[in-house]
């Protein structure tokens, strides 16, 4: 492998290591930031909903009898297209209110309720929070299901494409850099060869070539002289 390619390979190793050292933490940090921002939005929505519901519960009514909760949930759902569903359950798992009215009156288990935030369908996330009355007693559970947006999977794939794109660009740049860095040793060698072949000498290498050329010419001249002397001996012997 020539010097340019060897230097390019050296640079490629260094650049690949550098990009890997940058890409992995960037990817992890960006995905964490994305999750955090998404969670913040969901939590904000959930907290504001919770404040509204608890505000109504604070009048002393039973959660099931609290007025306008169903309308409020439907208004919030209509306001944000990313929200897929909002449901309010009793702690025992009975659906009291829900944006999907068909589910109202259905019953699920408290265990399912507890596990629901971690069991979202692909492309969705579910957050949940307990609803408490003035006495701090848990009177219900609020569950909010929303779209994941672009989704961490698609974002991670995008980051992989970015990495490949930069690597491809880097590959071309590394070849150019290898050629540029190797130019000086190549120029030295070319100057030596030019000096050796009798062309004007430039730099130390050119002078070294010119000196080798002079030595060789001197040797050739001496060989010519010796050949002539031998020819003279030959002629004299006849």
């Amino acid at each position: 492998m020539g010097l340019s390619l060897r230097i390019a390979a050296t640079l490629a190793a260094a650049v690949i290591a550098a990009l890997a050292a940058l890409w992995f933490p960037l990817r992890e940090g960006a995905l964490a930031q994305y999750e955090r921002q998404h969670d913040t939005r969901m939590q904000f929505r959930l907290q504001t909903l919770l404040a509204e519901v608890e505000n109504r519960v604070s009048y002393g009514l039973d959660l099931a009898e609290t007025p306008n909760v169903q309308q409020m949930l439907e208004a919030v759902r209509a306001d944000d297209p990313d929200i897929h569903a909002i449901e309010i359950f009793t702690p025992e798992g009975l659906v009291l209110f829900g944006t999907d009215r068909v589910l109202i009156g259905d019953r699920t288990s408290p265990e399912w309720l507890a596990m629901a935030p971690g069991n979202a369908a692909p492309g969705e996330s579910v957050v949940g929070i307990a609803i408490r009355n003035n006495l701090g007693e848990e009177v219900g559970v609020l569950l909010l299901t929303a779209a994941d947006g672009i989704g961490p999977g698609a974002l991670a794939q995008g980051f992989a494409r970015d990495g490949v794109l930069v690597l491809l660009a880097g590959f071309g740049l590394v070849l150019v850099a290898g050629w540029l860095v190797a130019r000086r040793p190549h120029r030295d060698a070319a100057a030596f060869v030019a000096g050796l072949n009798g062309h004007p000498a430039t730099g130390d290498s050119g002078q070294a070539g010119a000196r080798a050329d002079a030595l060789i010419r001197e040797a050739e001249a001496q060989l010519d002289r010796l050949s002539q002397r031998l020819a003279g001996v030959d002629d004299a012997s006849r």
Partner: protein
Amino acid sequence: MRRADTRRAGGTGLLVALAGFVLALALGLGLQALMQARLDRALAPDQAALLDTAANVAEQSLGRALAHDLPVAQLPGIEAWLETMRGNLGTDARIELELEGQTFSAGVAQAGDVARTRTLDPPGIDARLVFHLPRHAVPDGVAGSLWYPALVALAAALLGWVVFRLGAGRALVRSRARLEQRLALLDTGAFAADAPDTARAYGRMPADAALHALALRLEPVNLRHALLLQHAEGLRGIDFDGSLGAQVDEVLADLPGTWRDTTAVRR
């Protein structure tokens, strides 16, 4: 001579390190910018929806407060309410509520923040909510900071230098040493060209190409030398009384240098 070789290779090594630094920094910043832009694009809908939600909540709260016919200036705890909203938004952003010409705020805006405005529509009131948000979402961890690519580029420069010294740099020094050694022998009169198998064993460094050119240049000299020796052998072959051989020896005594085989040149 060897010191000069090492110095030259060291210069090339520094160039490799510099190139490694520049490439790693440029590509690293490019990668950071690409990933940053992608993250910004991914977060934009969530952020816009979050601000819309915050604006809706603010609008509803204001509407309820104003339903009691309180003058705007007498609404209690607006700044504390904004501070709570800021906490719920999980941001360091500054939030301003412009209400009938009065401005209430929470948090401090940073240089480079971008203002995003949501107009509120409580009945009969001119109100706007302005969020001063960072221009870019900074990824969690060290990789989102600007100094990290510079640090990584420095590490790449060091790695490039070490790999060069252990690989191409060593081959470069060796090839230059081979050439210098051959030139030193030439100074002593060793004009014999390398044997073909030795010439084939040259590496692919620039100095090896120079060494190969030297070997080519020496071939005609070697040919003349061989012809001279053949001529001398011929004369010795027809030497019947010994007088011719003595004259031939006298001529050959003036041969340049040692003409010794230089295939033993250390590589």
